[in-house]
């Protein structure tokens, strides 16, 4: 049984007084150059560079190829909790700025086999996301995909990647971490795996009420994360709480072949991933769940037919959240320069 990291606790104390927190965050965002030069943050940015380097080293060693991510397209990831997409006019067509490169990962996995992007994402998150400490409007994600990969393959890469990076940072930045008061243990995979149902049962036992068949609530995710001192996996989410590209388990209808990995110590979600739905008819029915016209996703549907059966699995890991965890920061707005936070602007 672990405990909540002091930085997370400090953040929680900050948001208790909403008004003064909003004041603080406005100043933080609008004059970010003032803190970016402080020793703590120059160290954070250097560690961030090392995290990216370590990720690339690990993935390259596992046979992944880095590909250039898309920036805009007629559609982007629709499976985002309540966040809006940014729209631009593309010569008379409406294009979206990527909220994740998910659909293009399948494309590139078909082309190259094992791929990853270090990709910028824009998500116009709802205003109340200011108070989570885990949401930025502009952020980076390392997004990878494995042709003919399975849920288990993706989870193994996630474990390996996390462990490699944590060790790398300890080796290279041991002193820096010490100065920041952050200590990381030696992580030893495999990490614990809970089904979604088991996770819900556990959080309910821990005193956080989470209904069955819905996404784990932020509050409960924190409880679950604080209960462990190594990362954990939650897999087999109920259908309906996730984007249409998550594949339904043919052996367990109503449940998905997908997973999340949570950081320990109350830092919450690290990774989301899983196997992708590849049967065009199923994809179309799932698209309808978000009330949309499948015509919008025509290129994806045509590609799925052309490359049938395009079986892939993969995941995405947020770079700022990873940095927050490694450095033990209060919130993601400490984990990048010029942070963009929901509803607050104009700012650099």
């Amino acid at each position, binding site marked *: 049984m672990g405990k909540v990291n002091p930085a997370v606790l400090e953040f929680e104390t900050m948001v208790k007084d909403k008004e003064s927190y909003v004041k603080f965050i406005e100043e933080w965002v609008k004059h970010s150059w003032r803190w970016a030069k402080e020793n703590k943050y120059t160290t954070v940015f250097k560690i961030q560079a090392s995290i990216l380097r370590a990720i690339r080293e690990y993935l390259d060693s596992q046979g992944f190829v880095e590909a250039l991510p898309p920036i805009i397209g007629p559609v982007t990831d629709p499976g985002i909790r309540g966040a809006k997409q940014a729209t631009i006019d593309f010569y008379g067509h409406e294009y979206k700025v990527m909220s994740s490169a998910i659909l293009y990962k399948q494309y590139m996995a078909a082309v190259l086999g094992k791929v990853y992007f270090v990709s910028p994402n824009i998500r116009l*998150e709802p205003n109340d996301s200011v108070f989570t400490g885990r949401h930025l409007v502009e952020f980076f994600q390392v997004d990878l995909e494995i042709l003919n990969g399975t849920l288990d393959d993706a989870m193994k890469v996630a474990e390996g990647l996390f462990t490699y990076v944590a060790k790398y940072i300890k080796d290279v930045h041991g002193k820096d971490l010490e100065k920041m008061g952050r200590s990381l243990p030696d992580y030893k995979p495999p990490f614990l795996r809970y089904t979604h149902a088991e996770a819900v049962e556990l959080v309910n036992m821990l005193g956080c009420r989470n209904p069955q068949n819905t996404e784990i609530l932020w509050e409960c995710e924190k409880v679950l994360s604080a209960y462990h001192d190594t990362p954990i996996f939650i897999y087999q989410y109920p259908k309906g709480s996730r984007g249409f590209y998550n594949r339904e388990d043919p052996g367990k209808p109503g449940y998905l072949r997908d997973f999340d990995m949570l950081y320990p110590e109350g830092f919450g979600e690290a990774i989301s991933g899983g196997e992708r739905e590849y049967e065009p008819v199923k994809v179309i029915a799932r698209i309808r769940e978000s009330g949309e*016209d499948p015509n919008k996703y025509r290129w994806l549907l045509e590609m799925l037919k052309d490359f049938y059966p395009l079986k892939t699995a993969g995941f995405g890991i947020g770079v700022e959240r990873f940095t927050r965890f490694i450095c033990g920061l209060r919130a993601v707005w400490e984990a990048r320069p010029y942070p963009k936070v929901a*509803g607050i602007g104009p700012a650099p």
Partner: protein
Amino acid sequence: MLEWVALKIGELALRLKASLITLRGIRDFIDDYPIDEILLKAIKGEEGVYPFGELASYGAAMLGAPINRRGYPRFLTIDDLILVPPAFTPRRLEKMAELLREPVFTDVNLEVDVGGLKSSMPLVVASMGSTDIASRYSIAIAKAAAKEGIPFGIGENVHTVRGYDRRLTRGHPSFKERVMAYLTNMDKYGGVFIQQNVEDAYDEHWNKVYSDKDLEPYIDEGRVAFEIKIGQGAKPGLGGVIKMRREDAVKVREKYHFLEDPLKTDRKTVERYSAPGTYTADILRGMIRLMRTSYPRVKIWVKVGPFRDVLDVIKVAYEEGANAVIIDGKEGGTGMAPSIAMKELGYPTIVGLIKIREARLMGIDDRMSLMIAGRLFNGAHIAKSRALGASAVYAGRPFVAAAMVKGEAGVRNLIRATKVETQMIVSALGKYNIRDVSQEDVASLNKDLATALGIPYVYSREF
């Protein structure tokens, strides 16, 4: 010569007829809808509950129960049910003990919870969309509904066709104007429910609403619902259609289906079709789950047309924790629907009420509201619907008609008159809370309806 005159007269008669046909739509509404009753209330307010024009007055008229109906209806309606007050009224005695005086109709409490929103009475302004008529009068209706404390709906396509916060078409309010006209005039009752169809989804309508700072306080307060539309009464199974000016059509040509490409046609207006939207039980289930995950602070409503499998829809909605299901019967209003659809598709409103009764008997409890729509507009309709398990009546056209004759004041008059009418009826039944009205308070003039609803047939000894 004589033949020539006859021919000319014939031609004239046909031309006259033809010119009248061009008035169809409005004329059908005036001929066929009980418009007198609504207009009287819109003009006179509470006084409009009595059948007086300007000449007749209290005690000076000679009135009685009407037995003739204009035209001959093809099917049964809620008017085939009657309300049956008792002589012995123990509840009135209870109320008297509470008030220490004889209770009167104004003592009747009409407050109800409708789909997670608090309403001053079991009446809801149906979500009306982007059509000219709905759009033109929307602000007056919004303000009146807010001030009278009843929930108000905003239908599909408003965002896409009329603009989110910037007006896209001249003379028509944007989505934001409509929603704020309601929300900023609301007091302790009411709330707004908002539709998103396939085309609005293109513009991420709900996402936009959910993260709109101006709406946030109302969302936090729990005064906002999102309404999934699975068809409507006037054209179950068909999508919306309106005529658009060509230049407006060009702006939305990638999102809608047009019979003629607005870029290529030389006509001034083009018909724009929207898709009905495809559903299966799985899709609806997934959709509600997705909405509960993405929009945890809004209520979820589901509106269905007169479909034969409506009970399955209710079941899925209930299991997934939706707050309301509305059944829109075939008499339901619309800005535009093919004649054949209105005549032939779907079942009458009263059958929707039978379905609601069945759902309640099946165990769908009041954690989920069930509403009924389709040519329902007065206090009796509300009382009968409540008696048979419906949570509220969902109406559109009466408010538009009231707004057409007297603007916002007309709509407020209509709502107040309907309130008084409902209070009168409930008190006549010897009850002082609308929630106490139950199946014992209704009986049927028709044998089949009596059987289907499990209530007494009036012309029988069981009654």
